[in-house]
């Protein structure tokens, strides 16, 4: 591999046009490969618990699509234009050290995602073993296989985006075929009318409460992609291929999986896909389906780990380290947590809710900064300038106003909906928690921008005027 291409893929240097290799088809396939994993099935299972089938279809589409659009406008578009990942792009409105504060939070949430997927791989393997051998798998195999899955993910990340692209070209078409077969099996075994008219399995009291809860889950699912969108966006040849690849793969394909999983949950009564795939498809087909789910999880996990490790390069201690060292630094804590997979696996909805609380306001901040104040123009020199001469140094490397507003938005969310216990305040069913949270962020940062940032040219927001002059010359 050419040294320049190697370095641009594995470091935080901008990816220039000649090094980009994704058009709309490849972008869509990679997004599908990233998006379709067990988390889709888990979300579908949660939908089936709380709402009826028709509502599940609509809310899954609405929540996922709005979440992905918001996250993609915020993260994908700047990354596609400048060839930088998400963590690099947010320096423009958070400052260098402000970005590191946020990045530290991402590391924790992404550790959770990696272990969730790895633990689902372990559950799939256990179910395959039980179906083929007829004996319950030993309990120690759950953490053991989880650890092996994390190690295999690390190996694929070390190989880099080219390896991921090849994995997707093989895995995604196979997975889509399996999904179609599952749908046909579902319809042939269970009356379609029964599925369409299925009621919620175990809802809370109050239909509106359940609708708003699943909307928050699906919006969280859509927004949860925000940290990783830049790493893929910067590999696209055009902005539309980057954006629509996100929408096709991370929204539409995931919605289809949510619906399939919800339908299976209504029919068979289990939200865990590793328990219904074999009863639904029979041993042969069910095992094949689980193998593809395992592969899908591996691919998705690889992307999560790859994106996170790109972010680690922002810290001085990792910026000049070899890729295997950087990726290993993330893999080791993931392996440690994998000794306790039940804790993470059993709190999946908490991860989704935290994603809305964190990434909703961040998306709003980034959209305001990039489109409204900076007119879609970033000063790359200041992005990479680590000294206080950078436009984005702010105060001690942090845009404190943005950080404070971000924290206030999270507090707003948690005051309306407790992401840990799901206890909600009285206004939750009227407003959701995400809308007020993002509204607080939008109003406060917009006012701050109009009253302080623009008049005093904080962070050199007038930079776009210089760029216009350069191009016009």
């Amino acid at each position, binding site marked *: 591999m050419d040294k*320049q291409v190697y*370095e*641009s893929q594995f*470091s935080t*240097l*901008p*990816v*220039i*046009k000649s090094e*980009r290799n994704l058009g709309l088809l490849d972008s869509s396939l990679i997004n599908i490969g990233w998006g379709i994993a067990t988390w889709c099935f888990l979300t579908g299972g949660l939908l089936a618990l709380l709402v009826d089938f*028709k*509502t599940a279809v*609509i*809310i899954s*589409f*609405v929540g996922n*699509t*709005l979440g992905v*659009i918001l996250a993609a*406008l915020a993260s994908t*578009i700047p990354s*596609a*234009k*400048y*060839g930088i990942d998400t963590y690099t792009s947010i320096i423009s409105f958070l400052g260098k050290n402000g970005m590191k504060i946020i990045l530290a939070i991402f590391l924790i949430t992404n550790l959770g995602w990696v272990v969730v997927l790895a633990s689902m791989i372990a559950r799939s393997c256990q179910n395959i073993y039980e179906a083929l051998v007829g004996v319950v798998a030993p309990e120690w195999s759950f953490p053991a296989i989880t650890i092996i899955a994390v190690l295999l993910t690390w190996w694929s990340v070390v190989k880099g985006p080219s390896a991921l692209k090849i994995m997707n070209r093989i895995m995604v078409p196979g997975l889509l075929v399996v999904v179609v077969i599952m749908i046909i099996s579902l319809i042939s075994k269970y009356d379609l009318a029964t599925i369409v008219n299925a009621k919620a399995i175990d809802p809370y009291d109050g*239909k*509106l409460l359940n*609708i708003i809860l699943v*909307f928050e889950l699906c919006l969280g699912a859509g927004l949860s992609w925000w940290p990783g969108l830049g790493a893929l966006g910067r590999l*696209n*040849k*055009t*902005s*539309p291929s*980057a*954006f*629509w690849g996100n*929408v096709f793969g991370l929204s539409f394909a995931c919605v289809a999986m949510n619906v399939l999983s919800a339908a299976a949950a209504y029919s068979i009564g289990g939200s865990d896909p590793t328990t219904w795939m074999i009863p639904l498809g029979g041993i042969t087909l069910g095992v094949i389906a689980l193998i593809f789910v395992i592969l899908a999880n591996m691919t998705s996990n690889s992307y999560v780990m790859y994106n996170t490790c790109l972010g680690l390069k922002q810290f*001085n201690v990792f*910026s*000049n380290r070899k890729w295997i060292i950087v990726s290993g630094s993330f893999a080791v804590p993931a392996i440690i947590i994998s000794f306790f997979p039940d804790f993470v696996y059993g709190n999946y909805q908490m991860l989704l809710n935290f994603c809305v609380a964190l990434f909703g306001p961040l998306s709003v901040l980034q959209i305001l900064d990039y489109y409204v104040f900076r007119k*879609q123009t970033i000063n*790359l*020199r200041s992005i*990479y*300038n*680590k*000294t206080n*001469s*950078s436009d984005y140094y702010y105060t001690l490397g942090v845009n404190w106003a943005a950080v404070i507003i971000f924290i206030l938005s999270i507090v707003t969310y948690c005051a309306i909906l407790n992401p840990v216990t799901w206890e909600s305040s009285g206004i939750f069913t009227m407003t959701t928690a995400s809308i007020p949270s993002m509204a607080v962020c939008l109003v406060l940062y917009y006012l701050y921008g109009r009253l302080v940032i623009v008049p005093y040219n904080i962070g050199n927001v007038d930079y776009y005027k*210089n*760029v216009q*002059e*350069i*191009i016009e010359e």
Partner: protein
Amino acid sequence: MKTANIDDVRVELAGKTGLDPVFEELLFERITSIETYGGETAKLSKTDTTFITALVVVCVGLMALCISWI
């Protein structure tokens, strides 16, 4: 006034990126290239924006429909 010139980028950023010299020179080349063309990709087109707006409107409408069923 700034110009898209690698020497200008080098003077402004040399030693300030925290990268080793080999990576830094690669960075200067890339920044110069990106500044010359105003970015590596164009903005979303008006057609894209129209489709995005339509998707959002459809989502809001579906949500309202869903709530009206209660």
